[in-house]
């Protein structure tokens, strides 16, 4: 279970949000919305433990994530708004490195299947530099297809730059994860409907 207690974050002089509290149980979806610059990404980074909140704390199964460190990270899939793709590595190599870093090494055939699931079939051996913006995003999101065993997904703008078909694929992957009892936190501008056993909305700003 993921809990936020009285969470606050500041950027310079500005308070982005404060007094934020919620808890997320198995199968629950948390949608974070708000205008540009309202602190969506900061909230997600605080939930990952990348950003120290200026007040409050985030707890995973009752323990502060800043103390758990990699014990928490092994339960977590974070897809940030930066692609984390290396231009000089192929799509498959990028996926294999990302999965291995997360402690979930994938076989080549599994990686290929995941890349195909995101509609990049046949482009596994292309260097990431040869991909368009939307294709890069698909290459990053291929991680969703091999991360079923990670209970918590934190996705920053997963639908940005994707075409309708890819949005549909990502929606079904997220829906499937929730149905399996996973937890998902995501930010989005689009009105993408996701079927979730329970959903919470947070409006920032």
């Amino acid at each position, binding site marked *: 279970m993921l809990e936020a207690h009285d969470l606050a974050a500041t950027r310079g002089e500005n308070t982005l949000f404060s007094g934020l509290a919620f808890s997320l149980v198995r199968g629950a979806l948390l949608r974070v919305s708000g205008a540009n610059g309202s602190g969506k990404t900061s909230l997600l980074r605080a939930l990952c433990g*990348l950003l120290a909140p200026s007040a409050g704390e985030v707890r995973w199964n009752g323990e502060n994530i800043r103390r758990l460190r990699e014990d928490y990270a092994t339960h977590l899939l974070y897809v940030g708004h*930066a*692609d*984390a793709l290396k231009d000089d*590595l192929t799509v498959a190599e990028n996926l294999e490195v*990302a999965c291995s*870093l997360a402690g979930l090494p994938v076989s080549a055939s599994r990686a290929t299947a995941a890349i195909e699931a995101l509609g990049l079939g046949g482009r596994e051996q292309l260097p990431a530099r040869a991909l368009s913006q939307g294709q890069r995003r698909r290459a990053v999101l291929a991680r969703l297809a091999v991360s079923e065993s990670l209970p918590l997904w934190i996705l920053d703008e997963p639908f940005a730059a994707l075409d309708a078909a890819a949005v549909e694929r990502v929606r079904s992957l997220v829906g499937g994860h929730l149905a399996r009892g996973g937890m998902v936190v995501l930010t989005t501008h689009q009105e993408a409907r996701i079927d979730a056993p329970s959903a919470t909305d947070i409006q920032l700003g």
Partner: protein
Amino acid sequence: MLPILRTVIRRDLLLAWRRRSDVATAVLFFVIVVSLFPLGIGAEPNLLRAIAPGVIWVAALLACMLSLTRMFASDHADGTLDQMLLSAAPLGMIVVARVFAHWVVSGLPLVVLSPVLALQFDLDQSLLGVLVLSLLLGTPILSLVGAIGAALTLGLRGGGFLLALLVLPLYVPVLIIGAGALDAAAAGLGPAAHFLVLAGLLVLASAFTPWAIAAALRISAE
């Protein structure tokens, strides 16, 4: 955890291989700087022999500085660093793997090339082994200590210059002891004491710098 470290090392070496020109820049810089001294000073064997250890060591320091700025910068810019901070392996261990890969790519070539370059200074053949061993012990310290500076200056404007200001003073003990090993050997005192101090520094640096680098990376990520 070991498979993760293997992946990180393999990834860094693969990236270095695919961007060979970046690696070659630092190594060529080393070769050129070292070669300029005999050309500028002229054929005075005694003088060249006397300055050889210092020149080679200073050039190695500067070549190491050149490659340091790239150590974490692109990973910071494209978000890969976040994924490393959220890895299943402790950040300190990942940092060790990355520093090791950095040393293989930018420190080891200097060690291998140094005896060839030393020939330009008419360095006694018996001293070539001492030179190689002193660089072999010293260059990993340069990578470890330099990585702290590289992590601290991530995302700063003019970070490259600040990095030099931060790191070069910390290199002074390594420079003195490393170049001193050759002087001691040339004077017939034997380089053993210098090697032991260098090895001690290397052990100290390997034990403590990974935590400093990891802490600096966490700060840069915020």
